[in-house]
């Protein structure tokens, strides 16, 4: 395979890992976040510092990045997940930016705003795809387990869920911690892929991108979120020759999807054989609009 295709597939696997994390938190637990790029930054810097300064092998370094992001997410979630709706969205934005600003100003450890160079390019395509496959399988088992059903119960009606005896605060926090782990791993893989990281790579625009990918794919659909990531990553790659229009088209796609199909491309459906069968049988008898999906 030629180098360009390998690069796109590696990037796709990395993006999918982060999108799965955000999808668990926003799509399944129903809490809107604008700060998950902060957890990616934690993962990226942890992996970079551990491999460059302590000579650790890259696999434990990546996992350490994910675990540190997970612990931080759990601690952050304890006081802040009491907030509901737009208030949590804004506080998560503040937290994400605060993480980035701390990294930017902590010169002695993170080398500040100029970035962290000289990371060994450990993320090859097999590494990224390997991590993606393991984490994706784990995620699909998680959302179909009793935990996954509890997350969905918290999303659909957390008052009813807590009346049924679920400790909703605990489950919300757990969901945030797991999504923090996924974003941390994804950030660590980015560090190995780019060989150079900079705080500005993990700013608010990156957080916004993560959420919009998840909403584009369909809130509450893990396969939809993977499909959405694939489409948006490929669209970004396709429009690279006319790069000044790239973000404009990206924004327009986002607005158009919200106006025309606000539930995202997949809605809450998973891409399973039975769903595909339903889709195609509907196509034979159904309207043109149904077929166009």
């Amino acid at each position, binding site marked *: 395979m030629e180098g360009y295709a390998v690069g796109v597939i590696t990037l796709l696997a990395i993006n999918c890992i982060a999108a799965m994390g955000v999808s668990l938190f926003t799509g399944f637990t129903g809490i809107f976040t604008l700060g998950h790029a902060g957890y990616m930054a934690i993962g990226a810097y942890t992996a970079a510092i551990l491999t460059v300064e302590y000579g650790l092998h890259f696999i434990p370094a990546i996992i350490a990045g994910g675990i540190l992001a997970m612990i931080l997410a759990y601690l952050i979630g304890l006081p802040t997940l009491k907030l509901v709706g737009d208030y949590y*969205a804004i506080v998560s934005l503040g*937290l994400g930016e605060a993480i980035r600003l701390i990294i930017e*100003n902590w010169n002695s450890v993170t080398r500040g705003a100029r970035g962290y160079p000289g990371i060994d390019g450990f993320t090859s395509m097999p590494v990224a795809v390997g991590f993606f496959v393991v984490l994706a399988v784990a995620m699909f088992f998680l959302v179909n387990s009793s935990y996954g059903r509890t997350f969905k119960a918290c999303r659909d009606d957390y008052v009813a869920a807590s009346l049924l005896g679920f400790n909703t605060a605990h489950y919300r926090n757990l969901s945030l911690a797991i999504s923090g782990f996924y974003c941390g791993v994804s950030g660590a893989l980015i560090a190995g892929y780019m060989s150079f990281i900079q705080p500005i790579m993990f700013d608010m625009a990156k957080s*916004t991108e993560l959420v919009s990918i998840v909403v584009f794919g369909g809130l509450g659909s893990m396969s939809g979120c993977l499909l959405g990531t694939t489409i948006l990553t490929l669209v970004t790659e396709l429009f690279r020759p006319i790069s000044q229009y790239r973000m404009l088209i990206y*924004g*327009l796609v986002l607005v158009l999807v919200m*106006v025309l199909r606000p539930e995202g491309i997949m809605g809450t459906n998973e891409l399973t054989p039975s769903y595909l069968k339903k889709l195609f049988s509907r196509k034979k008898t159904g309207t043109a609009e149904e077929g166009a999906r």
Partner: protein
Amino acid sequence: METFIQQLINGLSLGSVYALIAVGYSLVYSVLLFSNFAHGGFLVIGGYICYYALRSGGANIWVASFAALIGAGISAIIVERLAYRPIRERTPITLYMLIASMGMSIVIENIFVVTVGGRFRALPPVIPTDPVNFLGLATTSAFDILSLVTAVVFLAGLQLFLVRTKWGLAIRAASYNLKTAGLMGVNVNRLISIVFFVAGLLAGVGGIFLSVRYTLYPQLGSMITTKAFVAAVIGGLGSLPGAVIGSIILGLAEMLTAGFISSQFRDLVVFGILIITLIVRPTGLFGKSVGEKV
């Protein structure tokens, strides 16, 4: 002491400009209950209209600012018509409007990147910036005093509009319950257009002053709006006095940090204040309680 008073005036002036933006944002939130992330776009539109009216149109500052305010207001109405109204009519879920507004903010920002380029532009020196001695206590710039006065005038105007006019009454009614206001004979679509026009106009005023303070570039909106959001949230979403007080707190915190600690830490202080306020008071200082009845 002199530095303290100087930074106090700078902080009040910056805070009052944030207040213009935060109040518009809060106004939209109080009626539609969603965070309009495209609000910063109106500020940038106002700034660019003012810039081109002064540079290419040869207009004087009064005409240019008038055009900028009307332009920003009308663009806010257009954004509402194109992106939010179709969603609003279809579903009550405000999350979809939130995402659409993120998309709109990316679109507005990049329309400017594509058409006029991403470089920094300075407005011609139409607003005086020479130093002024303030009651013999401190020296500050005329620009700071002017932006403080302008913001106070516009905020007072908004208050008069909300209290004295029929549409102001309708807006206040809608901020309690939009649906009931509609049933009482208020033309909801026109009301929302008016709310967006007023919000856009105030953002336009803020845009002119901020582009003098920081120079004008397409991403100016997203940087400032984040601060204005933070201010509105600290004050309590949907509360106009809260938005003003939150903005003043932020403006002062930012300028005092810059003056006494280091200007690198000012954004960190801003977000720190946000997080602490929300942990102590989860609905902001003046927010309505959002608890759910079972």
